[in-house]
């Protein structure tokens, strides 16, 4: 049993013990804290050979010497070899930390057992499984299990939104997200099978697949046709425009921890898939479709940004804003440059933490006022000052103000797009310039939301409520602290990304 296996399996074991009668909240919290501790132990610098350039390679034997190699738990022979294997490199390290932090905060902020309508066991089991699914997907070195772990979260999400969701439309929303993501996964599966068949590969092991791909020299046309279903499949999971319509409603109607986990962590799976699988295996396919990706991501940023401004409810606005911000990550990936890709991964982390923070706060408001319509709220900073202050921080982080990780990440993404700039404006540069306007758009809607809810006259007919309690404050502090820490010292995360992405960029040839 290695530490990575513990990180993935602990929540699943906890879920099973809860099913057999263990106290739900206590067990879940212990599992989440255990995972977080293991994750930080893994990230401790003494496990790496730190050289002047940063972290060069991982010295744990099962981390592999050149990066993303897994230690096999078991093999499945026959149909191209599949093995359950967990491994880690810089990219998955950052995402593992993200998952551990957000899962801990999400479980911490979940209501006490007696405050849950319906089965509290089911509630916590589902939360644990969603987190475990994301964690397993980020740590699997085998393409098959990377896919399968992500699907582990599908049914729990369906049940969570359908049973514990808010609003009259929750069952409809649960159906929409499940069918949408189910279709996305099937298209993705088609793409993965196409990859296997196209490469004529005998294994699902990702590093071997990349090696096979580099030798095979598949034609660009063929690569493009295989890349397309992968892009659509991953794109649906990340809510790439125009496949985004499942996301805002789902986040608005989901219970707080599910919105945090899904928007913060699970959605990053599609981006991770592109960086980890699609681009290194099919670099020319990615190149051929760059312009398409650029158009779609501008759709994400500009069109959905404007849609976000038009929202009249905080939860839906956050849902749309989370969809919109995916555009920046796509931009970083599409830039194909080293600095842009580092920025993209860093932005995945930053966005995951900041959106989880925003959903945690909006959940707290919803619990207190029962409604998140801007028209019905106002002047709350006088009533609940702590919530107001924290929301302000979260909003600034989301806009990308300096001092938060989002800033560092977005700057790197924009620089990455202009790195190879030679004086002629290509599609990439135009997309970047349009994307820069997105920052203005985010500032407009975030600041407007902050003003509408917390500033101005105190709205009439509001129930009397108390400010955030410690069970809410602590997880929020955890998220905010992470954002500030990595915002001031982004090197804390970039040192992991540098060696991993250098290796990967060689594969892409960028």
């Amino acid at each position, binding site marked *: 049993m290695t530490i990575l296996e513990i990180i993935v399996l602990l929540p699943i074991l906890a879920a099973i013990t809860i099913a057999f009668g263990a106290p739900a909240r206590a067990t879940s919290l212990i599992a989440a804290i255990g995972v977080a501790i293991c994750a930080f132990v893994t990230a401790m610098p003494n496990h790496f050979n730190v050289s002047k350039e940063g972290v060069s390679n991982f010295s744990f034997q099962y981390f592999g010497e050149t990066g993303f190699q897994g230690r096999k738990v078991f093999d499945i022979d026959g149909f191209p070899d599949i093995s359950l294997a967990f491994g880690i490199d810089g990219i998955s390290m950052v995402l593992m930390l993200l998952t551990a932090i957000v899962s801990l905060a999400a479980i911490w902020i979940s209501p006490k057992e007696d405050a849950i309508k319906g*089965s509290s066991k089911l509630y916590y089991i589902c939360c644990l499984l969603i987190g475990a699914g994301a964690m397993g997907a980020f740590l699997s070195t085998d393409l098959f299990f990377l896919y399968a772990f992500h699907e582990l979260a599908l049914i729990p999400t369906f*049940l969570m939104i359908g049973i514990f969701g808010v609003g009259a439309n929750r069952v409809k929303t649960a159906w929409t997200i499940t069918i949408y993501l189910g279709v996305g996964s099937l298209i993705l599966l*088609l793409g993965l099978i196409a990859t296997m068949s196209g490469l004529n590969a005998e294994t699902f092991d990702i590093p071997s697949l990349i090696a096979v791909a580099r030798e095979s020299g598949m034609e660009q046309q063929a690569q493009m046709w295989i890349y397309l279903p992968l892009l659509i499949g991953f794109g649906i999971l990340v809510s790439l425009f125009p496949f985004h319509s499942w996301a805002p409603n789902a986040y608005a109607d989901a219970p707080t921890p599910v919105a945090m986990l899904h928007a913060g962590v699970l959605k990053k799976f599609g981006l991770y898939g592109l960086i980890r699988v699609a681009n290194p295996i099919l670099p020319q396919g990615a190149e051929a479709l760059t312009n398409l990706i650029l158009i779609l991501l501008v759709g994400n940023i500009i069109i959905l940004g404007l849609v976000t401004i038009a929202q009249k409810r905080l939860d839906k606005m956050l849902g749309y804003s989370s969809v919109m911000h995916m555009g920046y990550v796509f931009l970083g990936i599409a830039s194909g440059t080293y600095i842009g890709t580092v920025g993209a991964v860093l932005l995945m982390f930053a966005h995951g933490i900041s959106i989880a923070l925003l959903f945690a706060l909006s959940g707290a408001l919803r619990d207190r006022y029962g409604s998140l319509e801007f028209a019905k709220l106002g002047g709350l900073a006088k009533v609940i000052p702590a919530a107001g202050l924290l929301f302000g921080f979260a909003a600034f982080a989301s806009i990308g103000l300096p001092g938060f990780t989002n800033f560092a990440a977005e700057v790197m993404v924009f620089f990455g797009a202009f790195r190879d700039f030679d004086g002629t404006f290509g599609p990439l540069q135009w997309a970047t310039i349009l994307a820069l306007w997105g920052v203005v758009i985010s500032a407009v809607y975030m600041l407007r939301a902050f003003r509408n809810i917390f500033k101005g006259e105190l709205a009439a007919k509001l129930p009397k409520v108390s400010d955030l309690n410690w069970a809410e404050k602590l997880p929020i502090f955890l998220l905010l602290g992470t954002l500030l820490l990595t915002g001031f010292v982004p090197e804390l995360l970039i040192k992991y990304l540098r060696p991993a992405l250098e290796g990967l960029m060689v594969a892409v040839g960028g």
Partner: protein
Amino acid sequence: MPVYSLEIIVVCLGLLMLLIDAFANLSDKRTIGYFGVLGLLVVIGLLFSVEWGSKDAATSVFWKFYAFGDTKSLFFKGIALVSTLIVLIMSIDFAPIVMAQTADPEEGAHPQAGLGEFFALPMFACAGLMWMASANHLVSIFVSLETVTIAFYIMVAYLRRNVGSLEAGVKYLILGALSTGFLVYGMTWLYGMTGSMELPEIGKILASGEVNRTGALFAFALILVAMAFKVGAVPFHNWIPDVYQGAPTPITAFLSVASKAAGFIVFLRITALYLSSGALVGKVTVVLTVIAVLTLIVGNFVALPQTNFKRLLAYSSVAHAGFLLMAMASAPQGALKENAMSVGDVVSFYLGAYLLMTMLAFLVLSALRTSITGENVGSFAGLAKRSPFLAIAMLISMTSLAGIPLTAGFFGKLFVFKLAFDQEQWVLLAVGIIGACAGFYYYLKIAASMFLSEAPAGGTTTAIRVSPAAGIAMVFLMIAIIVVGINPTMMMNLLR
């Protein structure tokens, strides 16, 4: 111990059960059922200890009708035995309903008269199914198929005071007899064209190309009609919903799993002869592709609006037949790579997974039937609160049927899709993916009803009692679905 002794033991068990029923004065005839369960457990144990190709028998003239040394036939024998075992467990719980629907108005009769046969008949069907798995000769295929079908005619119409059951029985009898006619006629043509009754011999003659192509294809078409009826492929699927709905629940389960599996192994055997013949393979593949596309579309899309759970499972069984046919239509030609899965492996694996998940669904359904009236999806509302165990069991079964990863059903579909991809069957793939998407909806509809809907006001909320045997079977199936879903090697090893 030679392989064929297994069938002999099962037949003897069935006869013994009839004798016990007739001569031992049992106060509770369910004892016969438990006797059958124990007997089958022993036979399943023996399955792992049989001698593979006992040489004398394999070469003797008498045993030419029997395929020795074929691991797949052993796997299918296992499917037949396990499904009969679960059917018997279900039947024991189902006994009160059987008694209510068969009660004899005559005075002085045993209160459970007619129950003993209900447990004995599946044993004979099982023996037929096991033989079918090894049948290697046209006559032996025909006789074993009829052994099974005739047992099913009785079982489907067993609830003789229930109009639905009788209707199902008549429909099954008439259409079954018709399909038998097609089968015999097809076999005659095949014999006429090749001059042999033995499958290996026929295969050689077809592959040599010295055969009248039209005649051979005509024979294939006739046999295809009969086999499509057995496995429920469109356009010969019309009997399935009515018969599934009307038949007693355990028998429906038996029909949908064991009968389909046996149909597929025969179908596979005969089709394999044609697929190995260079001159015929093109036409046969086209026909199979068309049938597979139709079956996938009809099965998946007609399942969408179904509200009766048994009818929904009936269309789901049609849809799964579609996926299996998709595999058969994508049979790779030429030599296989080492370790690659052949069509036979894929179909067998799929059927094994199908056994696990469908039997689990029917076990839960028959447990529910004792306390919930009606088989409508809506009547499961609020089950998650009332009986969390049954709800979770059903959820696992449905996710597996829908083909969500980390369940056995997913690997079944994955193997089929991979096969179709390698053969560049794009139309089939597209239809298969669309069908699988539709499956997401209608299978999760059951889960949604159990978990998301509130129980109707005023209904009972006490937990539903599950008999120990059924409970053990459910736990076993749930674990098997997930274990095979994580590591399919366990089931693949049984195939090799």
